[in-house]
């Protein structure tokens, strides 16, 4: 893997060039109040390479909150036509845990029936990763992700060396192409130095189980009272699933124009924590209890996805722990509460 260096100002100048060229939307991390979000950059100066976590993960670009799948003239089935909107996109500053989450999403949407609406958006994206420079109290990603896995999806990885210098790992051809014309120089940094630079921030907590042990461990805890105990406090507000980078459940709804002349079949974000999610005909709800829904979500992260992909379904970003107003959603909280109860 080629390693380059660039000054922060040259990097930003390059991003500005890309913004001006206009052939690809440049998205980066920008502040929002006391927090951060991924947003389209009007100028590179808005870009923030020093952040703890974003409110929503980058999945919003690949599985948009509202996405048209099919369009039609209402009640005329012969009018069905597919829709697949995508645009060239560069995401700048994606932390490793979010890259791993994108890798998981890629697998979910490409294996089995291949979902072109997702895959096309992924295909026209360039992902520029960034090693975190700021800690986040709820993060425990070091214990959740394989450090090599971000490289499966990243096109470039940024390592912040100091306030003015970046190291650049060129992972893919797309990444190389992105840098065309940038004021980069060959790196003279030793691997030991880089390793240290990558791991500048340490998590204050660690999840005790990996993808090999986690499924068996949690399956045994299926009947554990922890689900009911934490579930009792759950608002079923879905915040934990919407902010999670590896949650991708969705709803599909038909919407029509006011003229009733044309309409769209639209995919929206949905989540298993919402009470009506598993309701069937006859108003039968297969996960009626808050605790059952809570367990289902945790199991998806700790059992289902690891069994299916041999990767933890939780990447340890800590978003759910922060988003949960009831303060129950974080996987660390589940582990801790289980221990306290024993």
């Amino acid at each position: 893997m080629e390693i380059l260096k660039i000054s922060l100002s040259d990097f930003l100048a390059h991003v500005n060039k890309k913004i001006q060229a206009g052939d690809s939307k440049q998205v980066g991390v920008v502040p929002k109040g006391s927090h951060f979000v991924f947003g389209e950059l009007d100028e590179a100066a808005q870009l923030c390479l020093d952040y703890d976590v974003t409110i929503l993960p980058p999945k919003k670009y690949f599985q948009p909150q509202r996405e048209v799948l099919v369009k039609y003239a209402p009640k005329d089935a012969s009018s069905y036509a597919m829709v697949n909107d995508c645009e060239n996109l560069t995401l700048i500053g994606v932390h490793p845990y979010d890259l791993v989450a994108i890798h998981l999403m890629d697998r979910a949407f490409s294996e089995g029936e291949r979902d072109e609406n997702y895959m096309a958006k992924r295909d026209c994206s360039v992902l520029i990763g960034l090693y975190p420079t700021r800690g986040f109290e709820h993060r425990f990603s070091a214990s959740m992700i394989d450090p090599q896995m971000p490289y499966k999806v990243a096109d470039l990885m940024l390592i912040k060396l100091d306030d003015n210098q970046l190291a650049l790992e060129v992972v893919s051809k797309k990444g190389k192409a992105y840098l065309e014309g940038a004021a980069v120089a060959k790196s003279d940094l030793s691997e030991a130095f880089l390793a240290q630079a990558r791991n500048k921030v340490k998590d204050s907590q660690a999840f005790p189980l990996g993808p090999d042990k986690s499924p068996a461990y949690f399956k045994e805890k299926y009947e554990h009272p922890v689900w009911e105990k934490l579930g009792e406090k759950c608002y079923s507000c879905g915040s934990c699933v919407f902010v999670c980078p590896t949650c991708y459940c969705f709803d599909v709804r038909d919407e029509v124009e006011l003229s009733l002349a044309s309409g769209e079949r639209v995919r929206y974000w949905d989540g298993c924590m919402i009470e009506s999610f598993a309701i069937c005909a006859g108003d039968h709800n297969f996960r009626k209890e808050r605790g059952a829904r809570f367990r289902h979500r945790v199991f998806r992260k700790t059992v289902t996805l690891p069994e299916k992909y041999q990767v933890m379904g939780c990447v340890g970003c800590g978003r759910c722990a922060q988003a949960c107003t009831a303060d129950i959603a974080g996987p660390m909280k589940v582990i801790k509460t289980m221990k306290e109860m024993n």
Partner: protein
Amino acid sequence: MSAKPKVAFFDFACCEGCQLQIANLEEDILGLLGLVDLVEFREVMTGTAPEYDIAFIEGSITRKADEERLKDIRNRAKILVAYGQCAVTGGINKLKNLHSDMMEVRKIVYKDKAAMEHLDTYPTRAVGDVVKVDLIIPGCPINKDEFVSIVKQLALGKIPRIPDYPVCVECKLKENVCRYDEGEICLGPIARAGCGAICPSNGVACDACRGTVSNPNKQAMHEVLAKYNLTVDEIIGKINIFAVDPEVSK
């Protein structure tokens, strides 16, 4: 509904802010007029009709005479929609009911003239407390996009469903900084969504102006509010500005 449904609008005790949302649809009103046949709407037109396919009712009921008028509308309407929080739960008007004695209420406003007969008022009732309601469109004021969507669904013969999940859902989708992170108390976790989390999106905590979801986690809400050192009375006060399920205020 194959032919254009005959639609009428009526209002009772309210601020008429909800029908203003309809006026605010601007050009879309022309589109709506293509879907329905507007037969009665006192604020915008002169004219009445003997019966309606859909009657939209705004406002709450505070007097016997209004009750009779509402029942008469119900008899002549196929589908009756309570729109706006005043109609759905009694809304702001129900704050009056917190006073145990209606004469007390009259005195606060009308002082020594309070006993005059025509000032009669009874505890505020929602439209659904007086007649059968087929559909509710909550909110103070209503969300005009939701209104349009419901009219479209009715015109298509669909069964409109309003969201039954908390405002936090929409708040997260808007990627707002949570009010709790700013040290404020927000009713979003129990409030019914459908507004697009408009208050948190404008930097203000949710007041639950659309009432609560049908199965709110009251206990959890009380625990959280108690953490903010609110007394039970304050919690009740906080939750019931818009007359949400009285159970929640217990």
